[in-house]
């Protein structure tokens, strides 16, 4: 491979384009870095496996589990909380309903009358694991 001679305008133009691409890359780097630092696991997805470790030990494996929460699915935080639990308890299928499955996981953002919340869906508390995590079971 040999090198020939090229017009100055071409060499300058190629350098300018390479430089502009690099500037765009540096800007993209800054934006991506700032965004990553500003939003570190904003929905606490990575905290859920530890928070739900005991529940994962107690709940039956590879089955359908119901879900009960005080957070609305209409809000992003409610949906994110649900997906955090769904990932932590997988390969159980955590469904967005507390009315049919035999076992239901409660995921609450603040203290409330968990027994009453479960009773509204014909559920009894099996274990209150603290930190807003409650295991329910359907009444016979």
């Amino acid at each position: 491979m040999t090198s020939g001679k090229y017009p100055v305008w071409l060499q300058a133009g190629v350098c300018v384009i390479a430089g502009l691409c690099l500037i765009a890359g540096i800007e993209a780097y800054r934006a991506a870095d700032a965004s990553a630092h500003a939003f570190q696991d904003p929905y606490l997805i990575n905290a859920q496996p530890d928070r739900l470790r005991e529940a994962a030990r107690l709940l039956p494996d590879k089955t359908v589990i119901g879900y009960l929460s005080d957070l609305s699915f209409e809000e992003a935080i409610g949906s994110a909380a649900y997906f955090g639990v769904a990932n932590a308890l997988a390969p159980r299928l955590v469904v967005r309903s507390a009315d049919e499955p035999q076992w239901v996981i409660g995921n609450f953002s603040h203290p409330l009358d968990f027994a009453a919340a479960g009773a509204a869906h014909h559920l009894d508390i099996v274990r209150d694991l603290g930190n807003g995590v409650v295991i329910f079971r359907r009444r016979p």
Partner: protein
Amino acid sequence: MIDPIALLSLAIAVALGYFGVSLWVPDAGGGSRWAPLLRTSLGAALGMGVTSCLYLLLVIAGAPARPVVIGLEVVALIVAGAGSLRRNAAPTTPPSITAFSLTWVLAGAALLMIALFLSAFLTASELNPQGGWDAFAIWNLRAHYLLHTETWRFAVTSQPMGSHMEYPLLLSSFVARGWLYADAPSASVPISIALIVSLAFAALLGSMLSVLRSPAVGLLAVLVLLANPYLWRAAPDQYADLPLALFGLSAAAMLVLDPAPQGSPRYLTLAGMFTGFATGTKNEGTLLLVALAAALLAATWRGAGPRQAIRRVGFLLLGALPVLGLSLWIKIFAAPPDPLVSGMGKDLLHKIGDAGRWMHIAAGFFQGLPAVALILLALTAALLRPRPATERSPACFLPLAAFAILLAGDFAVFLLTPDETGWLLATALDRLYLQLWPLLILGGFLLLRRPEDFAIPAVTAPPPKAKRARRSS
């Protein structure tokens, strides 16, 4: 952050793909020094698609045990490797070309850009190993269910999940395969996949254009590709749009690299296989298959007539058929109905006749354009200028034709969708542009001159004999 076992699972997939590409299209890249990088990046796409489909079939069949999966893949790797080495015993001589004098500047800039990209990717992945919303709500969540035969149907359940359980399974299956290797659902597996896909994406575009045009063109293309800021966010988000774009670019690569004027069945079927993987990755993959088939039909029809056009599209569809068949089987017999498809017919005529809706979507498409990256592409085009018509083969137009069809198809989906268009424009448009971006760059650079085309011819002094003759006269 990145588990060595996760990397090993990826290395096996990439190596399997590399040998597969070398066996099926041994002349891909010819004798170019960029051919190994081209085959490796194509191999990443092929290996990912093949091992993912194999794993999914094993899960459905009830044999997703670690020794079975690893054993099958290692045996396939040994067989493909041995076959490939035997077949590639006689290397061809690379053609001698005159390199652009500032290729080293472009190489330095591209390396710096890739280093910046890697740094941003690793930082973002370390701080957010769960990836973006779709990663933890769709792709990686469903991968958990694909770890066991008893639970694979959970990945396509119709139970209320608030997720897209009707989406194809290829990416989730590939993540599950990595978790099987790692023996745990480690976050490093989807992170490693996103990293390898991103690198293969840039390497494929760069090496393909280096082979087809020149190294300077390949490096310029990599720089313009990475000037799109959305790529920097989408990669650590672990979204499926990047693997989809890689499959799309790989399919386009096979069509433009095909050296046979009448269309080689091997290149065409491999292009079809890549589009099949795209259909198994996201619903937009089906649109990609239609766009590539239509672009190929139109380009061949114009140049070689209808018979050749139908033949080539036939080979393309033949290659897509196995994975397309698997995806369709899952869609028809296992997955819940797609709300997008079932909702499209609702108020169809009203939506088509609503001028305000057209304007709203068109404005959204315009505002969502990656402006800086497009300006850089336009500046490059203005600098290098189009190739003379005599140098342009019909294949050069394929990526741009596919790009135009995909853009029109995406616009039609936005027009007919039952979802709120404002929300879709805000959340999905930049990802759609990411899928289209490599096709636009490939098409653009195939139609532009190379810097090497502007070389100043060396001025040679007239032979001394002639001078003497003139003086004497």
